[in-house]
């Protein structure tokens, strides 16, 4: 036996347990104790363990992590942290940075949709970042090799680390033989392999390295694609949620109008005016004061309104009288000198211009001093001042050696009808009699208050109109329009493949819609089903944008304008009022108010009429197919060939026509020598398509037939005149749409039908009616082939995008998973020596 040096040391120094026990308050750790028991010379037993990653254990681990992070933070800043703690501090920093980003994005000014999308975008990005290794690496690795690539362990010092992080230092001791064997069995390692555990560990190490590398190589590709797919899939739901929420908030804002106005109030105008009053009170009202006040009131205001305000301020601060006092004598002297030096020597001018004393004497002598006069009362004074100048000229001429001046010429030089060019007239107007007095201050303040109030009301109403109907991605109307149009193709049961194929050509699209409409209209059951669904969709628009919403908006709009006008009128702001209410407040024509009112109405009409056109067109197809309420086609007086032309034109225009087509291109080349004898009724094929007897049968020279002035009227009548189909009426009535549709159709006949058809001016359907191009544009809505081409493009794009990036994502996932089947391949060693100890 070897000599134990430590034992010898203890014996030689006569140390025993007793000596340490004698001391009181000794720490629990005693060198002697440890030495005596010989425990100290061995390494302490390891306490490292694998972390149980189950969900049940997660909360406890989380709390533990927080405590550790807090400790790391403290140690880090005291300068005592170790590498692991500093690493943890890095995680803390990452979380803090994430929180800072979230706070910043939440606080940013952006539309709610953009803001939410920013969160969804970043959230999905971070989500994808953590999901990808779990889905594409961890899960397949577990299934294929039965290893956990995200296993964590805690070392003897309580430091938690990912097990496969450093693949050259894998603490396999933490795995029991049983666990390792289980993994080996799963990976089909021969059971009788010598040193089986070592072999399995080597295989596992290889797999960990390969998985780590695969993760780093694929994450950059996978994360953005996954994130974009998540965004793409979630966007419609977010849009729906936000649209409903926004609409409710918007309606609440208008319901609590006074409160909303108070919240929207911006007192900056009032503040600027108050500062102005403070600075200029009781000062004479010269041009600068006027200009400054005008610019304060018009800053950031609609230029049309600003012009009115400027004119009114000009009038409000107008000066009628000016004070004559000694402060202007020098000014007049200088003015005259300056005018004269343009024509004569400055030295001479100085000698002949009346001195300030002279001028002052004239003021005093005439009794003008310190009195206020209107400019027209200055005539006598001007004459006296000019006389003084002439006297000086005469005196100057008398002095020998002086050049002789012509007094008339000099007088002409200083006389001018223009107030600003006449040095004397200008001088006399230097000091306005009127000052910025208390009365005026009050008026200006009251105008500022009125305009502040008006601006706040406008802000609320603008916001309401914008959120409700604006041509913007996040308005209620845009959302509803997209919602409706997004479902049309499905309701009409158009074959998706065929629908997408037609996206490049409106002509082909036109044919597809036409055949679809004929298919639906020729089958009662299908027609009822489709029309009911369409009516449901369109009436949905009325629930989110109610008529009462619009009337309430108009009421607030009208009240805010008239209240403001009354207040401004009492302050004498007539030009501003004219611009607010128009020259005829009753009609509001050409007024600011009317612009806002029409904006909302027009936007609504634009969308609603597009939907109404769809319903009305399908109804027309049904009327044609059943020959119900289609008097043109059933009229025994109209020849068959003409009926066929009517039918064809109606079907074509219902799907294709633009507002401009009605105005300039609405002419239909046809056979001028049509068969007048054949008055048989229209016939249809079994599939519902018209069976033409004449149309397109013979190759004839076709022309427009202007003599047949009823042709256009009859076509309009077939398309929009009379009643709708009885089945359509039965569907629309309970949904409160019938009246609206009838109004719409009546408007088309009257406004578009009544429009002057300038190629053939006599060919108007009804009496001539005046309309704007905007009205005609709105009434004709969107042409159906154009609408469907847009929808088809949108659908195709979304699908292609999903196909491309979804495909890429799926491909990447497949490659990532497949690659793992080739991981961990290790050649099984061949042992020639059978005596090697087997440990399996």
């Amino acid at each position, binding site marked *: 036996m070897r000599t134990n040096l430590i034992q010898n040391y203890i014996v030689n120094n006569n140390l025993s347990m007793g000596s340490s026990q004698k001391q009181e308050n000794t720490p629990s750790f005693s*060198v002697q104790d440890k030495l005596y028991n010989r425990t100290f010379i061995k390494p302490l037993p390891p306490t490292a363990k694998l972390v149980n990653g189950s969900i049940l254990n997660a909360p406890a681990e989380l709390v533990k992590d927080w405590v550790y992070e807090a400790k790391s933070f403290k140690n*880090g*800043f*005291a*300068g*005592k*942290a170790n*590498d692991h703690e*500093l690493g943890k*501090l*890095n995680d*803390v*920093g990452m979380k*803090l*940075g*994430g929180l*800072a*980003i979230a*706070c*910043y*994005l939440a*606080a*940013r*000014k952006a539309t709610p949709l*953009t803001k939410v*999308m920013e969160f969804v*975008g*970043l959230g999905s*990005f971070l989500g994808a970042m953590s999901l990808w290794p779990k889905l594409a690496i961890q899960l397949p690795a577990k299934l294929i090799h039965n290893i956990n690539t995200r296993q964590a362990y805690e070392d003897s010092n309580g430091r938690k680390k990912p097990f496969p*992080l*450093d*693949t050259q230092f894998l603490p396999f001791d933490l795995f029991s033989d049983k666990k390792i064997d289980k993994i080996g069995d799963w990976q089909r390692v021969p059971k009788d392999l010598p040193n089986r555990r070592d072999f399995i560990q080597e295989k596992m*190490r*290889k*797999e960990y*390295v*390969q998985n*780590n*590398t*695969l993760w*780093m*190589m694929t994450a*950059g*590709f996978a*994360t*953005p*694609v996954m994130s*974009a797919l998540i*965004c*793409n899939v979630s966007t419609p739901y977010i849009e729906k949620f936000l649209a409903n929420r926004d609409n409710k908030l918007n309606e609440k804002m208008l319901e609590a109008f006074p409160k909303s106005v108070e919240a929207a109030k911006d007192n900056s105008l009032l503040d600027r005016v108050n500062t102005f009053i403070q600075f200029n009170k009781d000062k004479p009202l010269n041009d600068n004061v006027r200009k400054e006040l005008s610019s304060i009131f018009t800053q950031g205001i609609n230029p049309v309104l600003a012009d009115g305000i400027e004119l009114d301020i000009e009038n409000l601060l107008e000066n009628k009288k000016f004070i004559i006092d000694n402060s202007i004598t020098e000014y007049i002297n200088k003015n005259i000198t300056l005018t004269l030096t343009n024509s004569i020597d400055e030295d001479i001018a100085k000698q002949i211009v009346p001195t300030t004393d002279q001028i002052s004497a004239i003021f005093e002598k005439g009794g003008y001093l310190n009195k206020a006069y209107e400019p027209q009362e200055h005539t006598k004074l001007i004459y006296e001042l000019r006389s003084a100048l002439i006297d000086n000229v005469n005196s100057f001429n008398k002095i020998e050696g002086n050049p002789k001046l012509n007094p008339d010429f000099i007088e002409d030089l200083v006389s001018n009808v223009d107030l600003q060019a006449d040095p004397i007239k200008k001088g006399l107007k230097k000091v306005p009699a009127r000052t910025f007095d208390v009365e005026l201050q009050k008026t200006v303040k009251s105008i500022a208050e009125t305009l502040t109030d008006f601006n706040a009301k406008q802000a609320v109403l603008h916001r309401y109109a914008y959120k409700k109907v604006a041509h913007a*991605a996040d308005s209620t109307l845009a959302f509803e329009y*997209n919602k409706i149009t997004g479902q049309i193709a499905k309701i009409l049961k158009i074959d998706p493949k065929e629908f997408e194929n037609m996206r490049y050509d409106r002509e082909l699209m036109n044919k597809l819609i036409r055949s679809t409409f004929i298919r639906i209209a020729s089958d009662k059951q299908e027609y009822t089903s489709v029309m009911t669904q369409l009516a449901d969709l369109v009436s949905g628009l009325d629930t989110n944008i109610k008529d009462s919403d619009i009337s309430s908006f108009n009421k607030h709009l009208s009240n805010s304008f008239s209240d403001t006008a009354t207040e401004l009128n009492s302050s004498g702001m007539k030009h501003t009022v004219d611009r607010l209410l128009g020259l005829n407040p009753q009609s509001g024509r050409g007024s600011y108010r009317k612009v806002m009112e029409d904006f909302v109405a027009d936007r609504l009409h634009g969308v609603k009429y597009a939907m109404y056109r769809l319903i009305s067109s399908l109804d027309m197809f049904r009327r044609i197919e059943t020959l119900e309420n289609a008097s043109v086609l059933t009229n025994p007086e109209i020849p068959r060939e003409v009926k066929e032309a009517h039918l064809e034109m109606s079907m074509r225009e219902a799907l294709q026509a633009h507002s401009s087509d009605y105005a300039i291109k609405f002419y239909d080349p046809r056979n001028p020598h049509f068969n007048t004898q054949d008055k048989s009724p229209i016939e249809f094929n079994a599939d519902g398509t018209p069976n033409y007897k004449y149309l397109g049968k013979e190759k004839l020279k076709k022309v427009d037939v202007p003599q047949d002035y009823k042709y256009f009227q009859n076509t309009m009548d077939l398309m929009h005149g009379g009643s709708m189909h009885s089945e359509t009426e039965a569907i629309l009535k309970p949904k409160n749409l019938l009246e609206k549709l009838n109004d719409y159709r009546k408007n088309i006949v009257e406004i578009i039908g009544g429009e002057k058809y300038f190629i053939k001016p006599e060919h108007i359907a009804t009496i001539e009616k005046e309309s704007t191009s905007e009205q005609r544009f709105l009434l004709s809505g969107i042409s159906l082939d154009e609408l469907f081409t847009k929808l088809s*493009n*949108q659908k195709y*794009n979304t699908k*292609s995008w999903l196909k*491309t*990036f979804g495909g890429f994502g799926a491909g990447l996932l497949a490659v990532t998973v497949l*690659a793992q089947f080739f991981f*961990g391949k290790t050649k099984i060693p061949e042992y020639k020596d059978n005596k090697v100890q087997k440990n399996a």
Partner: protein
Amino acid sequence: MILPINSANNRINFSAEKKSEPQTTNPLEDSVKKLPYSHDTLLKNNFWTRTRIGFDKFTNAMTLYPAKGLKGSRNSNFYEFLTMGSVPYLVGSLMLMSVFNTNSKFNVFGRSKAAPLGRKMALGVLFYGLAKQISKSFISTPVKALTGVDMNVPYAKVVYEHPEYVDDSDITSVEYHKVYESVDFPYWQMLYNENNGKPRNEYFDKIAQKLGMGTNLNDSDQEVKPLIKEVITKARAATNISSYLWAAVGLGVAFQEPWDDFFKVMTWKFWDKQKIVKAATTFKDSLFDSAKAFYHGEGKGFTKHAGKFLLGAAAASTILGIINVMNISGKPAKMSAGDVIDKKEKYVVN
């Protein structure tokens, strides 16, 4: 498997050799990889070295390391794994650009305004990484100036790898580390002068002087080492927090509206000089305008000042970090060794 470190048959010397050293006539030896370093070497921390190291790491991260990793090589180590960590940043940013930038072909995102958002996210990922990296110098530079301790002083480490097969002679490689990358085990050896005629403790003398501990210390290295550790620990702690706040600032700047101008003219056509010049100037303008927009904000209250708060938080964390570094606690008083050990107490050296 334990392999012989020298294969006598082939007379191959496995040690790393410097390129400039004279070559042997053995053709087999000539085919052996020649490394720029024959032993661990301290490098100068300057722009050129940093660029060279960055380039070396980047090319390896894209080529050699993944190849080794995917084969499951036993030489694929933690350093290589960490180095490969830069790949997802770059690939991810480019991928985001392409995912959202396919507008000409797929107009899917037009309606939901996702396209500008996606491009801003791509820029955000890039700016996040850049700001995080660049901001580290906001602490390391003042710390170096004030204490003389350069947190980032690099060295080239010559690594002897396991042979992959019996006759594998290519068993050396170079890794670029930092002397202070571990606070537990700084590579002190790198900081001494060996065989170059200069005082051995020159580095530590300088730091001692800078920290106000005087000159001509007997064992400047022993006195200064704990202080350096403290400086490094505190500075790293501050960097780990502040760099993420700066990264958030980077992302915030990337999320501003003026970038839309840049995205309109952005191009991948590097051969089209006109377009590239236009894109570059617009980038500069957009960056400037976006920084302004980020700082000034819109609206009122917190909404308006959110950018300032974020910038303030990042700046404050940096400044407080530096102040904390400078507040060195354990400056040893000048005392003799005899006073340090109290002979009445019992000590255990472990």
